[in-house]
């Protein structure tokens, strides 16, 4: 068996929901069945076979070739298996992901990993706004798993995040970790204005004191936090800035906040 490869024939004129083209949803289906699945593109419903050239037959290992930012909900609800995107991906990558691995060689759109509960998403490029965040109407964003971003993240990274880890090797935009309920976000580069705004609990790890801090964060001073050595050890070997952290370098400056809500969150400033 070889990987099931969907090669985009032409860039679609409108957004395409390809969420059902994941290993869990396609389990047990033949290539002919898959080619006949109807997708929504605006008011039209072309079949998978009309949009993509299809090769291979292993539905547990899916490749989107010639990726495009109009392919949305890639890997949504997937429980296991692997999806690789060669190129960019649209919004809602890994929405409600339960398990398995999604890798994007380009960049991903907004709301990547929203509602994700398990598994792993690796983005070689950048992610759009509200990665790991809650979509409008949802009470919480990411609820488990690992989101790895090699590039930069947009605004409101991890908005209403409940559990899981987001590691950004580049920079993050404004309101990083806003309304965070729990979980861990680490940013190796710079963060924009007001990280942790209305944050209830959870951990925001940044490098260098943010230029614009929410007034609701209070300085608790530099401390050695033992849990960081376990955290760093669990990241050992990951691609990007966090895979080679010194597990003994656990001293950080701790800010607690946002005191305008429960104030049990923390902003940890490294180095």
């Amino acid at each position, binding site marked *: 068996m070889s990987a099931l490869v969907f090669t985009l024939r032409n860039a679609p004129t409108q957004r395409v929901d390809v969420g059902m083209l994941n290993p869990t949803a396609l389990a047990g289906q033949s290539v002919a069945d898959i080619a006949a699945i109807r997708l929504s593109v605006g008011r039209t419903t072309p079949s998978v076979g009309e949009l993509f050239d299809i090769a291979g037959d292993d539905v547990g290992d899916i490749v989107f070739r010639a990726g495009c930012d109009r392919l949305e909900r890639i890997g949504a609800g997937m429980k296991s298996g692997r999806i690789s995107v060669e190129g960019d991906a649209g919004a809602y990558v890994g929405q409600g992901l339960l398990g398995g691995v999604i890798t994007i060689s380009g960049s991903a759109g907004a709301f990547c990993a929203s509602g994700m509960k398990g598994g792993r998403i690796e983005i070689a490029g950048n992610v759009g706004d509200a990665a790991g965040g809650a979509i409008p109407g949802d009470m919480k964003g990411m609820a488990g798993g690992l989101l790895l971003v090699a590039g930069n993240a947009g605004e409101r990274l991890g908005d209403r995040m409940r*559990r899981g880890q987001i590691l950004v090797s580049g920079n993050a935009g404004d309101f990083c970790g806003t309304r965070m309920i729990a979980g*861990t976000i680490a940013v190796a580069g710079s963060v924009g204005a007001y990280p942790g705004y209305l944050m209830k*609990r959870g*951990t925001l790890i940044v490098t260098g004191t943010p230029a614009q801090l929410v007034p609701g964060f209070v300085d608790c001073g530099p401390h050695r*936090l033992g*849990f960081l050595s376990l*955290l760093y050890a*669990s990241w050992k070997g990951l691609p990007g800035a966090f895979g080679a952290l010194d597990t003994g370098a656990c001293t950080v400056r701790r800010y607690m906040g946002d005191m305008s809500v429960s104030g*049990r969150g*923390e902003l940890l400033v490294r180095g």
Partner: protein
Amino acid sequence: MIINGVAIDDTFAEAFGMRGTRLIITAHNETWALNSANALTGFATSVIGCGAEAGIERLLAPPETPDGRPGVSVLLFAMSSKELIKQVERRVGQCVLTSPTSAVFAGLDEGDPVPLGKTLRYFGDGFQTSKQIAGKRYWRVPVMDGEFLVQDTARMVRAVGGGNFLVLADSQVQALEACEAAIVEMRKLPDVAMPFPGGVVRSGSKVGSKYKALSASTNDAFCPTLRGATKSELDERIGAVLEIVIDGLTDASVKKAMEVGMRAVCGIGAAGGIRRLSAGNYGGKLGQFQYHLREILS
């Protein structure tokens, strides 16, 4: 059977099913990890009076511990799951949480749950926070020297308690030195703890007593000073008897520890004043496990 002049009695040690767990205590340095571990395993010689039996399994180098600091592996045993849970909570709460720079982790990955940080976290008075790292939950409890890091749940397994052997020697000093040598070798083994002070016990007991309030009393048959006055197991050459009690996470680990310990004693042999090896049992009626000395040493 005689090994190096030491007669091996045709008898067996009788041991019981217990519940056991392993905890990993770490600290800023080995001294403070040991301070904490010694407190936790203190007053844990016998379930009869202590509720638990515990001992230090071994020291752990920084690369072997979850947080990369010097550590100590300790084993705790109790007669029931409920009692073990109670003992772990009390002992970790009073001896590890209180100890500067300490952290404590589960030392077993499989088995029934034993609440660890799950209950101790309330000391944090609402300031405690949890973290899930690599599929395991930890609690960070703020304390006056920083944070007490404790894993949410430890694990307990069905274990064995009460493996033992008796060292019968010409003199008290010779018996003690032989036991010391045995303990040195036995402490190199995994999954076992020798819970008595220094691993050695002198007050072996028999079941029952002339006093109604006592369920156990001195093992007069092995008391040298009573040789002429009781139905003694000792001949005129024996001046002292000491016992080594072994608790282990598995049947095989207890058996192995007995073998290693007894061989160390036999290595000293009759030239060192060691005359016999025997074992404590209750006629095979009470314990689930029997360790026949000659079978182990054959």
